């Protein structure tokens, strides 16, 4: 499988596989930060040893298969053009930080894009695994298996007291960042997120918008993740996060019911108007597109709009980002050209659904 294939399919194959509570939880992610012993961290700026790390990773893991994860392909940052890099960032397969490491940065991606291993990001290795819906336990178990596989070929930097040693002290210990992507339109509409977020922060967890800047959450998509990595086992971290996520799911469901009860027809009107905008607009900015996509998704969840795939929200949120739009247009686009292309792409995508 070539890199082109990764980039051509906006929607990673794993995303279609369902998972628990997938009307509200779009995906679960586990990230493990790992470093090699006796090699300076990527943050040290000492390039030579890092290039050796890259060479070693390429030799040992490029083209390898582990259990269900077939054919890991290594892509060097220096071999990617700017659009390809953006596309990988928009798919969350690499970080913007890694994309800047032209000398020793690389990423290993499994064929189904469920697993990506960033090489020489802030840490030597950052293993990421995604599952659809709420499946943190399964994700962490699988991440551990892959971790053990990598460790069978590499000596990790580990200390009995401090655990896995990472370049940033905020990751030391388990090196684990567990996160869940949630679609919370009703909690946002009813202004409850503003009260909920500080409460969640008190529990050592963080909530932020996935797209958009600051407190703004484009598409009503939020990421909930753990902050603390030291002094808690991976199981505890997962349990704490899962219980908070379950509460959020519960509140979101109740809020949806409440809105439908209180002002069903107004909500229905609002959601269908958004459908109308996306089906007909000729120019659309990403903020409006995100809002309308969130509305369509909610209408699908409520059973008002039928025959459209649920993944349309996640899919089009990725597809309408600047990198993908330019990839789709096969040329560079100015912001105003992007708005035209975005509207066109969304219309085409919706027509595709109607024809099915």
């Amino acid at each position, binding site marked *: 499988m070539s890199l082109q294939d990764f980039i051509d399919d906006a929607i990673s194959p794993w995303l279609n596989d369902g998972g628990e509570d997938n009307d509200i939880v779009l995906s679960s992610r586990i990230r493990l930060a790992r470093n090699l012993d006796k090699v300076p*961290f990527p*943050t040290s700026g000492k390039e030579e040893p890092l290039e050796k790390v890259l060479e070693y990773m390429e030799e040992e893991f490029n083209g390898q298969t582990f259990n269900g994860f077939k054919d890991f392909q290594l892509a060097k940052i220096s071999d990617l053009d700017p659009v390809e890099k953006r596309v990988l960032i928009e798919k969350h397969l690499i970080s913007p930080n890694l994309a800047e490491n032209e000398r020793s940065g690389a990423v290993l991606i499994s064929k189904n894009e469920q697993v990506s291993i960033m090489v020489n990001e802030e840490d030597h290795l950052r293993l990421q695994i995604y599952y659809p819906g709420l499946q943190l336990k399964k994700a962490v178990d699988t991440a551990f298996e892959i971790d053990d596989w990598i460790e069978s070929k590499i000596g990790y*930097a580990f*200390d009995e*007291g401090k655990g896995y040693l990472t370049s940033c002290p905020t990751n*030391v210990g388990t090196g684990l960042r567990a996160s869940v992507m949630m679609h919370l339109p009703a909690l946002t509409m009813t202004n409850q997120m503003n009260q909920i977020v500080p409460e969640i922060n008190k529990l050592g967890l963080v909530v932020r918008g996935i797209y958009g800047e600051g407190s703004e959450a484009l598409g009503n998509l939020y990421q909930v993740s753990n902050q*603390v990595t030291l002094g808690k*086992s991976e199981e505890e971290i997962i349990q704490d996060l899962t219980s908070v996520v379950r509460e959020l799911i519960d509140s979101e469901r109740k809020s949806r019911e409440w809105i439908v009860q209180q002002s069903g027809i107004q909500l229905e009107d609002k959601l269908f108007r958004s459908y109308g905008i996306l089906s007909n607009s000729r120019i659309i900015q990403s903020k409006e597109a995100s809002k309308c996509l969130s509305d369509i998704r909610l209408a699908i969840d409520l059973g008002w709009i039928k025959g459209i795939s649920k993944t349309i929200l996640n899919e089009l949120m990725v597809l309408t980002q600047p990198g993908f739009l330019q990839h789709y247009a096969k040329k560079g686009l100015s912001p105003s050209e992007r708005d035209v292309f975005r509207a066109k792409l969304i219309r085409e995508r919706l027509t595709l659904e109607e024809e099915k």
Partner: protein
Amino acid sequence: MECQRCHENTASVHYTQVINGKKDEVHLCEKCAEKEGYMDFSNQHLSMHQFLTSMVPLDSAFNKSQSIKPETTTQCDYCGMTYGEFRRKGKFGCSHCYESFSSYLTPLLKRVHSGNTEHVGKIPKRIGGNLHKQREVENLRAKLQEAIQTEAFEEAATIRDQINQLKQELEEERKGGEA
């Protein structure tokens, strides 16, 4: 590069100042830097490295008369990073930094990790050895305590047997190691 002030000596002190987004660069030789008040060199001769780390604002704003605190110059013997540099970047240079700076890290880790300083999670297979078993004993002890508190005595008995079994194994391994 020559010194901007005397235009004679080589500039060895480079100082960048950003005020309200306006960037100013100053390049001076040691003597002029001292005269200009960028650094007090009178007491001791400082290496470039120490000079840079002394600029790290440890408490509040940069204070030119502030004497160098010993912790800023503590250096990692493996990668050469100083504690001051770490404070400035917020990132370590290598895994050995943890040990080199260990005496300063506890308060920082406590702040970042809700008061925790000890790892209790996964252990690499390769390093593990009997650490895995020790950890399990600790976990089981906590479970035992919980079982006793909730008066689940049958469960407690099972856990106690498991602990004893593990302890015995650890004891045997230790003896085996000595022989």
